[in-house]
């Protein structure tokens, strides 16, 4: 059917098009065009300041990324990979552990689940303030605890060896509740009789988890791992608030943001970094989907 039932004979074909026109044009202008234009701007040098020229310079930004600026690009690539792998693995372990613990009926568990889910509803500006306060090297409780444990002081988010793991932990703190809920949804989809059969076969607690829960949880794991990895890859607002990208926390996303909007206004170079980020997302996302789906079938 190529036309809806609405309107007169003359307007029948037009109405569906009119219906999608405004959101469609808005999406073309502010959704599709900017995405595609990133490719174009990545071949230019442009500051965006009024009156400055836009220089088309071919592959200049890409050559710079692999020659004069390769140290910075390489470092941010490494930081990004550590961030994505660390957050994805730990957040899923935490989410699964919490799901196994908290998948119980009862009002108290409803409250606990809500509390664990809560951090992610706040803005990164709020979460950033909370952890800057707790991790303040002079007045924060973390400093007191550190002193009691190790007898020394540390700058926490201002320390190059601690900043990245701490930012990752804050990220996990914020979103572990979401992973937990997806795993709980998965657990609730596993039929009870399967466990009863396993118990009849003499499977203990651990073997029931290994041979029943874990394989049957595969769809939830797929969704969770994929969403966590993509989220961690795109995250830079939280890092911006916590460290400003200093002390070894500059992911590709943050490097892009800083190049374009951090005072230097290198919009062309930033677009090139957005392209690198895009290629990385494509590679990681594609690999994950392929392997996770295959794993679901095998299990």
């Amino acid at each position: 059917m190529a036309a809806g039932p609405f309107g007169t004979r003359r307007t029948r074909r037009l109405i569906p098009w009119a219906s999608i026109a405004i959101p469609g044009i808005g999406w073309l202008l502010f959704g599709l065009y900017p995405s595609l234009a990133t490719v174009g701007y990545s071949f230019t040098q442009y500051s965006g300041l009024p009156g400055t020229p836009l220089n088309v310079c071919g592959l200049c930004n890409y050559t710079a990324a692999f020659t004069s600026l390769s140290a910075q690009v390489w470092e941010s690539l490494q930081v990004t990979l550590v961030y994505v792998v660390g957050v994805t693995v730990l957040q899923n372990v935490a989410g699964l552990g919490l799901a196994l613990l908290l998948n119980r009926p009862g009002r108290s568990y409803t409250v606990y689940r809500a509390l664990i889910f809560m951090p992610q509803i706040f803005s990164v500006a709020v979460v950033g303030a909370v952890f800057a306060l707790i991790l303040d090297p002079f007045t924060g409780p973390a400093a007191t605890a550190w002193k009691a444990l190790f007898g020394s002081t540390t700058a926490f988010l201002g320390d190059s060896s601690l900043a990245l793991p701490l930012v990752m932990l804050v990220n996990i703190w914020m979103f572990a509740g979401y992973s937990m809920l997806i795993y709980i949804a998965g657990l609730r989809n596993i039929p009870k009789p399967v466990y009863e059969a396993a118990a009849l076969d003499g499977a203990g607690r651990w073997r029931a988890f290994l041979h029943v829960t874990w394989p049957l949880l595969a769809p939830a794991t797929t969704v969770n791992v994929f969403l966590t990895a993509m989220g961690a890859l795109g995250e830079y607002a939280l890092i911006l608030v916590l460290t400003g990208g200093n002390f070894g926390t500059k992911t590709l996303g943050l490097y892009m943001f800083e190049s374009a909007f951090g005072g230097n206004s290198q919009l062309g170079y930033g677009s090139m970094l957005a392209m690198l980020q895009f290629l990385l997302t494509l590679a990681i996302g594609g690999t994950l989907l392929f392997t996770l789906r295959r794993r679901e079938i095998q299990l």
Partner: protein
Amino acid sequence: MRTNPLRAGTRNLLCFGIAALLFAAPLVYLFLQAFKTFTGFLQDPTGLPHPWTLENFGAAWTQGDFGRQMLNSLVYAVVPDTVTLILGVFLAFPVSRGYFRRSNAVYAFFVFSGFLPGGLIPLFIEAQALGLYNSMPGYLILTSLSGAGFFFFVGYIKGIPREIDEAAALDGCGYVRFIFTIIIPQMKPALATFAIFGFVHAWNNLILPLVMLSDQKLWPVTRGLYSFFGEHTQNWPLIAAGTFIVAAPILLLFVALQRHLVEGVAGGAAFGTQGVAVPAEPGEAR
């Protein structure tokens, strides 16, 4: 049946400990700081407030200009949320029904476009060129015309029987009236979920205001807090009060709708949809 390695009481206590100490305590700790005087804080930074004071809330409210910014945030959250939902329905309905040629191709193209590079930088250049940069109407246009929620709605509308379209059209019901009086009321649960997540997402957004709004008078409250934080380094009681003011509306919303949000995701609402990672603003990297 599964054997239970933890006694019910032990498990409950353990879960309470995790929820309270790991997840709630950081926020409670921040909240407590807001009741300290600055000297009281310096004397005992990690203890309970002594003496207690309410002055920080008033001071933060006036110094941070949070009153105006709250209002801005409300506008930036409510207007795009409402417009996006309505436009999303108008976009999703004919696509879902296949009421124009190649609607499947249009749908596939939309899905595909979600995997394109982030467009924040070109969006910034475009906003400047179109005069949408650093203006409230401009910001609202940028955030309202994205058609977010579209995928979610397409699937949902498929569940509404097609026969009512034809019946309504035979009775002479116009298209716009049909959408507003028949389709939108049918979609209430989907729209409510999306409205809540969209509101929270828009209220919390920091990156887009950082890029698009340079004039302090136009800032939403998250952008304001970000600067407030930098201006008052080390005056933690004042920062804590400001942070609490920014978080309070979202916290209230969460307490009121907690069951709907949390159990909605746990009940499987996340499968096949984007779940919480909902409407990415145009040009945002994620």
